[in-house]
C-alpha cells in the first residue's frame, strides 16, 4: 500500500499526578521533541484533578518549558467559564512570544460545583450553555489576538510615533455573557493566532469544535466511533464555511507501553487507523509518562518513520508549520495588507 500523502500528526499528554518540579515537565517535553512530535499537551482546570491531589497551572508550566525546547508545540488547557477572556488572550499570546510561535490552546469549560465554589461568582451551569459561552470567549480571544496588526509598531523617529494607531483595533466584542473593548495589551503573537484545540468527544462540543478548533481530540478506543465523529465534525466545519482539510482530528488514547512489543503494537494501530481515515493522527496519553513516552519516541516513532508515515525532523519552526496551517490573515487589516 503506498504511503498516504497527508501527513500523520502525533501529540502527547505530559500530565503527571503530583509533579511540581519544572525539570520533570522539561524532560517530558524534550523527549517528545526528540521524537519530532507535533506538540505536547498539559491539562488543567480550576479544581484538583482528584480529591487530595494537585497540579500546577498549565499555562505557567509550559511557559517555563518553552525556553528549554526548540520546536515542539506547547498546548496548555485554559478554561473559559470562570476566567477573564482578556487575560486568557494575553496569557496565550505571551506563551506564543516566549516559545517563538509554538503555542496552542486546549479550550475547556468548568462544569463542576467544585470549580464554581472555588471562584464564587456564578452557579454551575449545564455543558451546552458553557460551550455556548466558550464560543464567545474563543471569538473574543481571537479578535484580541488580531487587535494589533502585524505592522502596527512603526518606531517612526521622524514623526515621533511608536505605533501606527490606525493599526490597533478596538474589538468591541459584546456577547451574551461579557463584553471586551480591547485592543489587547500584547502585540499580535508570532503565529498570528495560537492554535486552538478542543476535546470534542462529547456531542455538546461538536459545534464549538467545528467553528473554532484547528485540532480536535476524540477520546475513544473504537475505530468506528473515531471515524464517525471525525466525519460529523468535518461536515459541521464545512457547514460553518471552513475547509475541513484544515482540521486535524486526533484520536486520543491512553497507552501503557510496558515492553517493546507494546510499542510495536501501538505503531500498527496508529498506521491502521490513519490509513483507514478514522483519524489524522493521535494524541497519546501515557499511563507512566517517562516510561511510555520514552518507548513511544524510541520504538513506536522509528517504526512509523520507517514506513514513511511520520516526519523524521521538523520542517518548520512554529506549531502551525507542524500542523500544515497557514499563518492567519488579520481580520482587521485592509485587504491589500492581509494578502502581503
Amino acid at each position, binding site marked *: 500500500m503506498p504511503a498516504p500523502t497527508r501527513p500523520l500528526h502525533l501529540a502527547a499528554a505530559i500530565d503527571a499526578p503530583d509533579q511540581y518540579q519544572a525539570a520533570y515537565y522539561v524532560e517530558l517535553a524534550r523527549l517528545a521533541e526528540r521524537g519530532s512530535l507535533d506538540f505536547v499537551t498539559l491539562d488543567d482546570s*480550576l479544581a484538583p*484533578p482528584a480529591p487530595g491531589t494537585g497540579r500546577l497551572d498549565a*499555562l*505557567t508550566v509550559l511557559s517555563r518549558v518553552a*525556553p528549554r525546547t526548540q520546536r515542539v508545540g506547547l498546548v496548555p488547557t485554559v478554561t473559559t467559564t470562570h476566567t*477573564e477572556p482578556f487575560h486568557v488572550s494575553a496569557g496565550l499570546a505571551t506563551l506564543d512570544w516566549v516559545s517563538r510561535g509554538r503555542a496552542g490552546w486546549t479550550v475547556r469549560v468548568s462544569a463542576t460545583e467544585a470549580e464554581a465554589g472555588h*471562584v464564587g461568582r456564578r452557579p454551575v451551569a449545564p455543558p451546552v450553555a458553557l460551550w455556548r459561552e466558550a464560543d464567545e470567549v474563543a471569538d473574543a480571544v481571537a479578535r484580541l489576538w488580531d487587535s494589533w496588526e502585524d505592522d502596527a509598531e512603526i518606531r517612526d523617529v521622524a514623526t515621533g510615533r511608536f505605533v501606527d494607531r490606525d493599526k490597533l483595533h478596538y474589538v468591541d466584542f459584546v456577547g451574551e*455573557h461579557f463584553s*471586551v473593548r480591547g485592543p489587547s*495589551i500584547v502585540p499580535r503573537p508570532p503565529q498570528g493566532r495560537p492554535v486552538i484545540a478542543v476535546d470534542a468527544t462529547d456531542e455538546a462540543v461538536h459545534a464549538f469544535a467545528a467553528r473554532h478548533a484547528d485540532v480536535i481530540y476524540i477520546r475513544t478506543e473504537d475505530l468506528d466511533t473515531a471515524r464517525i465523529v471525525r466525519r460529523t465534525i468535518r461536515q459541521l466545519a464545512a457547514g460553518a464555511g471552513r475547509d475541513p482539510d484544515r482540521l486535524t482530528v486526533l484520536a486520543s488514547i491512553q497507552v501503557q507501553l510496558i515492553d517493546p512489543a507494546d510499542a510495536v503494537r501501538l505503531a500498527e494501530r496508529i498506521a491502521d487507523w490513519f490509513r483507514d481515515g478514522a483519524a489524522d493522527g493521535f494524541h497519546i496519553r501515557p499511563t507512566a509518562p517517562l516510561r511510555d513516552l520514552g518507548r513511544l519516541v524510541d520504538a513506536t516513532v522509528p517504526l512509523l518513520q520507517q514506513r514513511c508515515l511520520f516526519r523524521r525532523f521538523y520542517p518548520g519552526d512554529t506549531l502551525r508549520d507542524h500542523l500544515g496551517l497557514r499563518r492567519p490573515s488579520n481580520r482587521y487589516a485592509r485587504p491589500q495588507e492581509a494578502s502581503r
Partner: protein
Amino acid sequence: MTSGVHRARKRMHLAAHFPGVNNTTVWQDPRSGSQIDFSSFQHLAETAERGTFDFFFLAEGLRLREHKGRIHDLDVVGRPEAISVLAALAAVTERLGLAATVNATFNEPYELARRLASLDHLSEGRAAWNVVTSSDAFTGENFRRGGYLDRADRYTRAAEFLATARELWDSWPLDEEPRPFVHHGRHFDIHGEFTVPRSPQGHPVVIQAGDSAEGREFAASAADVIFTLHGTLEAGRAFYADVKGRLARYGRRPEDLKIMPGVTFVLGDTDAEAAERAVEIRRQQVSGQTAIVFLEQVWGRDLSGYDPDGPFPDVDPEPEGQVTMGRVRHGDRLATAAKWREISEQKQLSIRETVIEVTGRQSFIGTPETVAGALDEFVQTDACDGFILVPHLTPGGLDEFVDRVVPLLRERGSFRTEYEGSTLREHLGLRQPAESEDGTGLDNH
C-alpha cells in the same frame, strides 16, 4: 544616622524594572530593542542576575492609554502577560527573584493564587507578586466584572484578596494532605480545595506599590516590600520612619518590610559628562509632542495649536476636562498649571523646556563612584533599604550599571558579592511565613 554610634553596614537590595510603557523608556535611540521579544527579557534578567540583584520586576497595564480619545502613540506600547514571561525567565536564570505586577481588582483569588504558587514552584522559590488595584471603569471595559470600585474599596478588596490568597497557600501544608478552605468575606465568598501544595517560599513575596496613607498601612500590615517614589534624602528618611513605625502594630519587625524606591540613573566617565548625557536623555524622553501631551493632561484641553518651542499657553486649565485615560491623574490642576507657568516665566523656558524641568530629572547622575556613593548614602542613612532601578533603554539599559556600579557597591561592603541563598525571601532577608492554622499569617484578620 547618629555619628559615633557603631552600626553594622547595611546591605542594600537591588531590583531591575523592565523599561515601561511611558516616556521614560527611550525608543528613538538606535540601541533600543524589542519591548516584546523574549530575548529582550532574557538579556535584562541575565544582566540583573549577573549583578546578583534581588529581583526582576514587571509592571502591568490592562488597557492601552488614550489621549484625546485615541490610543496614545508617542511611547512604547505593548507588553506580555507578566506571570507567563516570568515563568519562561525562570528557565534561563537560577537565583534572580521574579516579580509580577497583577491587579487585584480584575482577578479572582483562586486562579491568581494558583498561578503565583505555580511560579514559585517552577522557579524553586523566586516568585513575587506586586499587588496593585485599579478603580477605573475605563480599564473595566476589558473585563467581565467591568465597572468601578470606590477608591475606599480598592484597598479593602486588595487586603481581602491578599488574605484570601494566603489562606489558599496555607490550606495545603508542607508534607501533608490539602485541607478544605472556606472564606466568607465582603468581596470573596469561596470554598473548596486548593490545587497547589505549599510552594518553596511558603508564600510568594508580596510587594505593595503606592505611597498614600492607605497604601502605607496596607504595606505595613501585609507586604514584604514597598515600591515607593524616590525623593530627597530627608523625604526618604521621613517615609522610612513612618512606614517602619507602623509595623509594630501588626506584630512585625522593621526588617520584615523592605522599602525600595523606583529610581533612574545616568552614568558617565566624569560627573559633567553624566550630566550632559542626562540632559540629552531628558530631551529624548520629552519630545515636543510629548511636552504638549503632558500639558494637555494638566490643562484638560486641546493645546495642539501651541508651539512646544514657544512660550507657555496663556489659557487656563479646564478643571473638569479629561483628555487622558489610563494614566494617573494630576491632583489640583489649576495649582499645577500655575506652578509650571511660574517656572516657565521665571527661567524663560519654552513649553518643552518647562516640561523637561518639571517632570523630573534622573534620580542619580554621575560617575560610577558618585552614583555608588549616593545610593549607599540613601541606604546607610535609612532613607530606604534598596532600589528598584528603571533603565531607560531595552534591553541594554542595565549593562553599564552592573558592569561599573555594582562592583563599587560590593567593594564598599554595601551589596552582596554572590547570592547567599536560593529563594527571593532569602535574598531579601525575609522570614519564611509561619504555617498558621487560620491561614491569615501576618494579617490582622
